[in-house]
């Protein structure tokens, strides 16, 4: 039975590249090394519901059509829209992302990634104060203090701790977990917190206060710290500050607890300042625990091509960027867009009710391999191949390292890239009367 080694898992930002997949008669027969999330994704290509054919909503029901009819209907929506939202593109390849950006430019759309409900505020924070980061390999080989802040990798990134952080054996940490201290800062005792040397429970939404108190302690201003900050005692804050200063390599790995809570990007901004303070005593880095496997890739490709990592508005004829104004949720909540195209993402499941309500009202195009809540609202549904399993492509790991994903099995489905190329051609034809079949 053919065995494909070093397969890259296309589920979360860890992009684990040591998966072994057995394939026979174009079917996945076995998956080794993957976590529960990656295993489900890989075998799910055959076992989960797929969107089997393109569909268009007629009289309230989705009716099967050909790819050509769906592309035509989608292109007409885009060509007739005065202000379109293009959203998602983080569970697909960089090659497809590049085409999604080109389509957004062609249609004068706002294009945003899933970072809008994930690490968007982290991008803003690093623009304000910088991103003192590292590769996951550096963390694995060097870090002797791992701090998980507002994240729960046991659930969201199940192999992170064994491959790259707490439990991994590195060059300077040959004994793995014994050579590292692990601290978890969170609002509840998560499964990750249960495995920590030290669990610090903070009051929800008070992260900025705790970061500020830690900075005071590290900078020698202990007297300025009250007895209790964010529900954490002064003694505990001073203890953590000492532990940080006396470690060789401190890694602060943070998640949605930081980005989705009160203070939002100011939390990440403050963590970046904390890293700066710490580097006067030791080596320290920060890293966002990225969710979708190629959300980092969207940030990279969008930045090369437009100068901005997300929430890019092409309506002025040039890239304009102002999250809070041009973010996906902003334009939906203000009921500003009159059509939307969603690819490789599911705002129906992951956006708050007011944004979903507007998505339900406007013409909505979905490109995805799988039916999901967004499908229930969509007017045109176009099925796509699964990148990293049915088609190869490039993705960026959470530490911005590009990795080439493999094709494991063949498929009849069009790729995201092909669908987007078809849409660009059709939109140009409709808007300008051009017939530019192979001009891309």
């Amino acid at each position: 039975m053919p065995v494909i080694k070093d397969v890259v898992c296309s589920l979360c930002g860890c992009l684990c590249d040591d998966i072994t997949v057995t394939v026979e008669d174009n079917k996945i027969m076995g998956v080794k090394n993957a976590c529960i999330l990656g295993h489900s994704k890989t075998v799910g290509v055959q076992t989960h519901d797929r969107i089997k054919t393109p569909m268009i909503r007629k009289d309230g029901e989705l009716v099967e059509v050909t790819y050509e009819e769906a592309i035509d209907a989608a292109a007409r929506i885009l060509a007739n829209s005065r202000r379109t939202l293009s959203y998602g593109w983080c569970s697909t390849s960089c090659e497809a992302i590049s085409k999604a950006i080109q389509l957004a430019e062609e249609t004068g759309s706002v294009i945003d990634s899933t970072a809008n409900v994930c690490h968007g505020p982290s991008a803003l924070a690093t623009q304000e104060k910088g991103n003192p980061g590292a590769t996951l390999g550096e963390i694995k080989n060097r870090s002797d203090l791992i701090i998980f802040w507002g994240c729960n990798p046991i659930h969201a990134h199940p192999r992170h701790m064994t491959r790259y952080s707490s439990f991994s054996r590195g060059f300077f940490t040959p004994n793995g977990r014994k050579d590292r201290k692990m601290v978890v800062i969170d609002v509840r005792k998560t499964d990750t917190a249960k495995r920590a040397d030290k669990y610090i429970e903070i009051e929800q939404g008070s992260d900025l206060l705790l970061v500020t108190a830690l900075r005071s302690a590290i900078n020698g201003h202990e007297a300025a710290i009250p007895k209790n900050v964010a529900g954490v005692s002064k003694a505990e804050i001073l203890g953590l500050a000492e532990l940080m200063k006396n470690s060789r390599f401190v890694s602060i790995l943070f998640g949605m607890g930081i980005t989705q809570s009160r203070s939002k990007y100011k939390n990440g901004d403050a963590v970046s300042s904390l890293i700066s303070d710490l580097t006067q005593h030791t080596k320290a880095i920060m890293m966002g625990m990225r969710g979708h496997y190629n959300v980092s890739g969207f940030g990279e490709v969008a930045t090369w091509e437009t100068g901005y990592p997300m929430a890019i508005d092409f309506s002025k004829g040039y890239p304009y960027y102002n999250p809070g104004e041009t973010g996906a949720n902003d334009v939906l909540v203000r009921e500003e867009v009159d059509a939307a195209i969603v690819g490789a993402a599911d705002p129906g499941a992951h956006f708050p009710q007011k944004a979903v309500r507007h998505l339900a009202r406007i013409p909505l195009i979905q490109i995805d391999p799988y039916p999901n809540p967004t499908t229930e609202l969509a007017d045109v549904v176009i099925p796509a191949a699964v990148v990293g399993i049915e088609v190869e492509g490039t993705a960026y790991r959470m530490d911005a390292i590009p990795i080439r994903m493999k094709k494991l099995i063949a498929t009849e489905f069009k790729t995201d890239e092909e669908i987007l190329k078809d849409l660009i051609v059709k939109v140009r034809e409709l808007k300008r009367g051009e017939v530019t079949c192979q001009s891309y």
Partner: protein
Amino acid sequence: MKIKANLISGRTTKQGANLEAKTYKSYFEACSYCELNSVDLDKLGAYEGNSLKVTSEFGEVVVFAKANDGNPKGLAFIPMGPWANTVLNPDTHGCGMPGLKGVPAEIEITDEKPLDMKSLMKKYLEN
């Protein structure tokens, strides 16, 4: 009896394993519940599996009750997904990110049953 709670959402392994199987019952089971400290559940007179109505200024949703003593008293957790998002804060406060954690909510026991995914989404089409 109602309790006031601070509502957060987040990932779980089961929610993640069903990310691409959202039409399945396993996704419904993975995301349509609210975790509370067992002391809070006792206050409500609720057992695991009972229905709870979670209400915020942004909406209301019915989910199953689940105990998790890792949650401090007064902290409610619903896995990320369409059930949680029915009651979370859409305001992005000028930086693009909605308030998906830290929403004041009231929780009470109810006889209603949680809606499955398709029924929940249908409500958006009706409004």
